[in-house]
């Protein structure tokens, strides 16, 4: 176990969570909670892998994943925005739909080799001592995309006009409506963008960061962690970055723990006792629950919590929230 390795890998795998979580933040900021992230990610991962295998083009693969995630999210948008159905139920169904579609269409892809998004080292920046080695040396291109995504999405949400409209729609849609902001279009748009980013997050697993198709183990519940991260992050991309990278590191640490190492002078129990491994595999989810508790307790103390209209369908003429 090497701290630098864990950090490097954490940044790398954390990018998957980061992309998915920022997508979900955009969606929830508009007032639409989409619990189907896991489904959209898996569907995106499958689409990317398949297209990459068939066409040999990584660009096409990423576009396919974005389209696949976006397509699924439109189903959610239609059901929750247009028909005002319950967002939790619709989101959960979307997970099943996405997972099911991915498994059926991804039949026979296991174990194949496809072209992947390459790694790269950034000149100059990689020369910075320690930091350069962890952040800018031999990382996947999507990891660098993640670096750009954090400030870009933060700036978009808090410092631009579309961002202002997005926040207003999620906080007080009636107010935004009276000022001429189209609530339905805004919500459709950001639900779709959230889906696209979930698809991209899926692709970043299957054709980039840890390439391969292992049916539903490809995402192995990371979509759920991304949903939880949104609360942990208080609907803020910078929080999603912290949480995403932290969880990425933890995942890597858990994997390392399962190797044949010595722990504090003892034989590693996690390697020799297979039952203990199950507990280890639970850890990310236990931590997610703790993060959720912490996040919501913090949300209660702080005024800036969840968007006030999150989960509430908007009907013009029904006053208030």
């Amino acid at each position, binding site marked *: 176990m090497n701290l630098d390795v864990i950090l490097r890998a954490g940044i790398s795998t954390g990018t998957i969570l980061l992309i998915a979580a920022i997508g979900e933040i955009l969606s929830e900021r508009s007032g639409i909670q989409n619990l189907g992230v896991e489904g959209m990610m898996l569907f995106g991962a499958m689409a990317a892998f398949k297209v990459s295998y068939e066409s040999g083009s990584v660009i096409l693969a990423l576009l396919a994943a974005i389209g696949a995630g976006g397509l699924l999210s439109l189903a959610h948008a239609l059901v929750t925005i247009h028909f005002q159905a319950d967002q939790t139920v619709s989101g959960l169904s979307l997970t099943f739909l996405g997972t099911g579609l991915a498994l059926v269409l991804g039949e026979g892809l296991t174990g194949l080799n496809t072209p992947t998004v390459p790694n790269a080292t950034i000149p100059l920046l990689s020369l910075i001592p320690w930091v350069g080695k962890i952040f800018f040396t031999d990382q996947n291109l999507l990891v660098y995309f993640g670096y750009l995504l954090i400030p870009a999405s933060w700036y978009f949400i808090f410092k631009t006009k579309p961002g*202002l*409209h997005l926040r*207003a729609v999620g906080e*007080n849609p009636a*107010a935004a409506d009276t*000022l001429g902001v189209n609530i339905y279009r805004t919500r459709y748009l950001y639900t779709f963008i959230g889906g696209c980013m979930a698809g991209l997050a899926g692709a970043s697993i299957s054709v980039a960061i840890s390439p391969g198709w292992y049916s539903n183990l490809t995402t192995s519940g990371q979509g759920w962690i991304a949903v939880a991260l949104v609360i942990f992050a208080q609907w803020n991309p910078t929080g999603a970055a912290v949480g995403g990278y932290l969880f990425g590191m933890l995942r890597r640490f858990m994997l390392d723990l399962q190797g044949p190492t010595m722990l504090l002078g003892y034989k590693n129990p996690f390697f020799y006792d297979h039952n203990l491994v199950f507990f280890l595999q639970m850890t990310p989810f236990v931590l997610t629950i703790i993060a959720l508790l912490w996040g919501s307790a913090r949300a209660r103390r702080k*005024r800036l919590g969840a968007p006030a209209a999150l989960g509430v369908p908007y009907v013009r003429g029904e006053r*208030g929230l």
Partner: protein
Amino acid sequence: MTLPTSIPESPAVEMQDIVLRFPGVLANDHVSFTLNKGEIHALLGENGAGKSSLMNVLTGLYKPQSGTIRVNSKKVVFNSPKDAILSGIGMIHQHFMLVPNQSVTENILIGLDEPRFTLNLKKYDEKVRELAAQFGLNIDPTAKIWQLSVGEQQRVEILKILYRGANILVLDEPTAVLAPQEADELILTLRGMAAQGKSIVFISHKLNEVRAVADRLTILRKGKTTAEGVPLEGLTKEKLASLMVGREVLFNLKKCDQEAGDTVLMLEDVSAMNNKDLPALKNVSLCLKEGEILGIAGVAGNGQSELVEVITGMRTCTGRIWMGGKNIANKTPQFSIEQGLAHIPEDRVGVGTAPNLSITKNVIMKNFEHEPISHRWRLDYTAANNQAKKLREQYDIQSPSVETQARKLSGGNLQKLILARELSSQPRLVVAMQPTRGLDVGAIEGVQQLLLNQREQGCAILLVSEDLDELMDLSDRIAVMYEGEIVGIVNPKVTDINTIGLMMTGMARRGTACDDGVFPPEAGQADADAGAQTGETDEAAQADAETATPEPPAPPEEEIEPAMPAEEAEYLPPETEKERILRKVRGPDWNKGGRP
């Protein structure tokens, strides 16, 4: 179809034959409305008369089934609020349409074409500040909405519309949420804006206010106009009310003089936090006696909700709340109910009723555990229905049957349902929060009379209201709350409404916590720039004349603050009995720094 009584020279807005239909409801039935340039036009009517619907048509939120709208003599069709804004029409809604965690400027910029992409808030803060200065609206553009008082939030709403270059402003019951001084200030602002050429529609059901502000008025009843564009001269309050309600409304409530009895409720040093974990109640002490109505006045959000919640067992607190010899603080609501407490909550739909359940189920919600409705583990719905039918009759709840879902009732009937449930339990204490808010004149009269009847039967009533007229009419004493403290308790018979208004805004303080219904000698009003001494003696004499037993005059240094310049005047409350004792016991510095 009605025609305008006089053809105006240059109307800003002409609405003709507007028909607006919702499923099952005819909200506007061939309504016509004309607004002249530079006038303030009052739109009067009961709840559900179609005032807001008509104005929502004008502001593009609803599309009428038929009818025409002309703005500045040009025919327009509005498909969305944006179209109306482009025609220079803006509406200030009754429920503010603001995003609480965004700044003033951010709220104003929502939906505008400029800025195009990046916000550059600093530049726009400056623009907002200039506009605010032009119309005399004092506001900090960088403040977050949730940090502002209700009056300030209203200014943001007005600014939002002015920023869009609106010439026609529609205000939906703008003073409902304001303290009297804030309301006066608003009316002055509106007058100033009308003088600058803006045309203003002023929706209200407060008759006095309409008389103070409007040039002309239009009255709606059940979706039809009963008066259109009538000048205000010569219309009496009674005439206005009957045009609104369709029958005579009595403005004199039957309130008998009676002596207060034993103490029913006593609060000692009660403090509590609000939902944001900030102190909302600060050492509140109160007492309330049989056959007495204690009014709680205050601008919304000064601790009134929290006060009601700690008494009804819905919020934890420190201190003691005595009711019938038992401390009900930090007990369950069930426990308070058993002591004889009835609660008429502010939120009728969320707290007061279960909207999707029937009238019967809502009515038995408090006593379903007792005979005759429950037999051990079984509920007897026949008995429950009978009880509901009886109460429906007695309280005149208009509904097709007792099986009707509560959410289908109108505001007034829903409130009657709550009153029926709460008052039929023969309570010793009624805690009523905003019992008449949002009700029409007729329903208000009924609710107020019910409360007075309870008082006559010896019930103690804590009445929290933002409507000062109501408090003045009903209360035996009025406690004024400001920032979580009782800043004074006054007798409505001898106190001027402006004095209470000043206390509500924290500009004046006085009074005691628990004083047997006897108000203290007046400690001078905030506008008393000099001669506080003489004022005090005058009013004290008046006070003494009111009560049979004159209070021994307290030492003057405890009662009167030195006179201060009018603007800066802030008076410390004279010491309460309890504080006087504490000072004796613990020495002069017992509460150093504890009071502002």
